């Protein structure tokens, strides 16, 4: 049973101009997406830069004004609502940012950074708070003396782990992770990913994992949605997407991922070029005249693909 639903979410930015600075156009950053979140599952959001995946994440947590659509959290409509500080939505949905360094206040000690959500949402005595912080630091594998240090004293991977510690401080149900490892080295990335899996198993967390790295998404997520120009192109379980891609955009994306083996790279290159040509040739069948992706049509219980123009006419 899902605990959170998003229905036809839209985020449009007005483009102002002209003599009276009126709205002359709109940027359709997110244009009608529908999702459901179940407990303990990880959802991946994949797409090229500029496809609206980060905007989706920000809109969910309330950092971006939603133009239309609704977010239902445990039966309660929380769209653009003026939520009280003690609202359970604010406490239960947390975010991990891409750039760990700029998401930590450089003038605060680690203790105060992690204490912030605790002070906002949980009423603990100073002693309990102290203990909670030590506990969190231990969960993310940082030494006790990190408490009194400042963010600049840590390496990139350590900073990202502090960001995670802050996100899990209030025992959230959903964590929105916006490219949490794209700035990290391979082995540090492995460390953070392993760790995110561990706490998922331990606390039954759900993730919305926003990334452009399909390898990472495949490793982490049960359910993957591919995004293009603010709309879903294809959505389904990991197996649906990787073994049975239906949309040409998904196929093109999958063919472009470099494989970690030099064997057969000539074939892969030929395949890539073939898929690219197919994409160019078939392009007009899969998008309407404004490059908008058609609505999703279910293929199976878990798998849905954007329609083609021929299917569209039949409907």
């Amino acid at each position, binding site marked *: 049973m899902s605990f959170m639903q998003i229905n036809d979410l839209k985020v449009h930015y007005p483009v102002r101009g002209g003599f009276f600075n009126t709205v002359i156009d709109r940027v359709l950053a997110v244009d009608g997406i529908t999702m459901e979140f179940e407990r303990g599952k990880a959802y991946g959001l994949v797409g*090229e*830069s500029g496809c609206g995946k980060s905007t989706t994440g920000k809109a969910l947590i309330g950092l971006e004004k939603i133009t239309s659509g609704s977010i239902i959290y445990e039966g309660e409509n929380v769209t653009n609502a003026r939520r009280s500080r003690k609202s359970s939505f604010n406490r239960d949905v947390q975010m991990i940012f891409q750039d760990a360094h700029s998401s930590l206040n450089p003038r605060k000690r680690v203790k105060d950074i992690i204490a912030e959500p605790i002070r906002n949402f949980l009423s603990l005595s100073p002693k309990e708070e102290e203990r909670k912080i030590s506990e969190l630091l231990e969960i*993310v*594998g*940082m*030494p006790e003396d990190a408490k009194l240090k400042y963010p600049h004293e840590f*390496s990139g*991977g*350590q900073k990202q782990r502090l960001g995670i510690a802050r996100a899990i401080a209030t025992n959230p149900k959903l964590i929105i992770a916006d490219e949490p490892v794209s700035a990290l*080295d*391979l*082995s540090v*990335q*492995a*460390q953070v*990913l*392993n*760790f995110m*899996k*561990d706490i998922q198993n331990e606390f039954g967390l759900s993730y919305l994992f926003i990334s*452009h*790295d*399909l*390898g*990472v998404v*495949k*490793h*982490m997520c049960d359910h993957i949605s591919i995004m293009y120009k603010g709309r879903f192109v294809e959505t389904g379980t990991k197996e649906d997407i*990787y073994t049975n891609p239906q949309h040409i955009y998904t196929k*093109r*994306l999958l*063919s*472009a*991922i*470099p*494989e*970690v*083996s*030099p*064997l057969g*790279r000539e074939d*892969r*290159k030929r395949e*890539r*070029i073939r898929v*690219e040509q197919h994409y160019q040739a078939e392009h007009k069948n899969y998008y309407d005249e404004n490059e908008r992706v058609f609505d999703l049509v279910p293929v199976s219980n878990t798998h849905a693909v954007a329609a083609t123009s021929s299917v569209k006419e039949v409907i």
Partner: protein
Amino acid sequence: MQFVRFKLIKFNTITGRRVNLSKELLKINNLHTGFRIKDTFYDAVDGVSLTVNKNEILAIVGESGCGKSTLATSIIGLYDQNKTRVQGEIIFDGKNLASLSEEGLNEIRGFQISMIFQDPLSALNPLMRIGEQIEEGLSYHTSLNKMEREKRVLELLKQVGIHNPERVARQFPHQLSGGMRQRVIIAIAIACKPQIIIADEPTTALDVTIQAQILDLLIDLQAETEAGIILITHDLGVVAEVADRVAVMYAGQIIEEASVEELFTNPKHPYTRSLFNSIPQMNAQSDRLNVIEGIVPSLMNLPRSGCRFSSRIPWIPGEAHEENPALHEISPGHFVRCTCWKEFQFKTDKGGGTHELYANK
């Protein structure tokens, strides 16, 4: 300060350039590049020897801070002269680039050796039109006149897969997308048909689809021009797709060097093997990724003797390491530093738990 830039008139134009007959283009001998921190020089590149052959893509792989970009900037002298010390030999075309003056390097940079940068936006001048930026190198290094240069610019833009070269040549960098900008950077790099192209993370800032296109373009161009390419990257997927030969760097040293097939099918050094195990693989189903304990030591704290990787594999006994680790040729063309690879096994192999959560304690 000269008010008029000294223009070099070359006898050898683009078309009639002296052809280097030997296969070896660039030979680096025991290169040390050190940076000054409080009056002491610390070597970021510590005794690297490499050769780059004609018509070959040599990939240099490593984590950030292992010295791979420093190696690239040492080759073409793009370092701060006051704070950097370069020792050793970089032999190119009979000259030692490490001891060449700025003027001497200017003659080579962009003409015989050129570079593709990671961030295309900061590598392009925001105030110059694309056409002019590509022309710059041509007017400096060749004796083509204005008309010929413009013709060559359009030809280059076409070559790198830009469909509307006339319009793009008149545009400014901010009007282009990231992939287009990177294509322009490549056009600038290949303008004078260089013998060596150094590509420093050429696709890191790009999306996967664009990355695939740029890599295919690089391979095609290389096949055409028979240039030697030094590809610096941390993405092993990219290496597997394009490289011919791979050198893995760790803490300023090359720790393994082999052909791409050999390295990917038969990696030996513990560091290389650990790296492979920490990639979230597309088709591997294992749940946990391997983590290398500890961190790359900073420049000042780098141990200068013994095996530099030993601190990150503490469960391997000290006797397994060499006193002064050297590169050993274990099979033709496959070099591995130190002897610890013979004893190495992953911690989980022995049944011990991975303690990566506390790795940085």
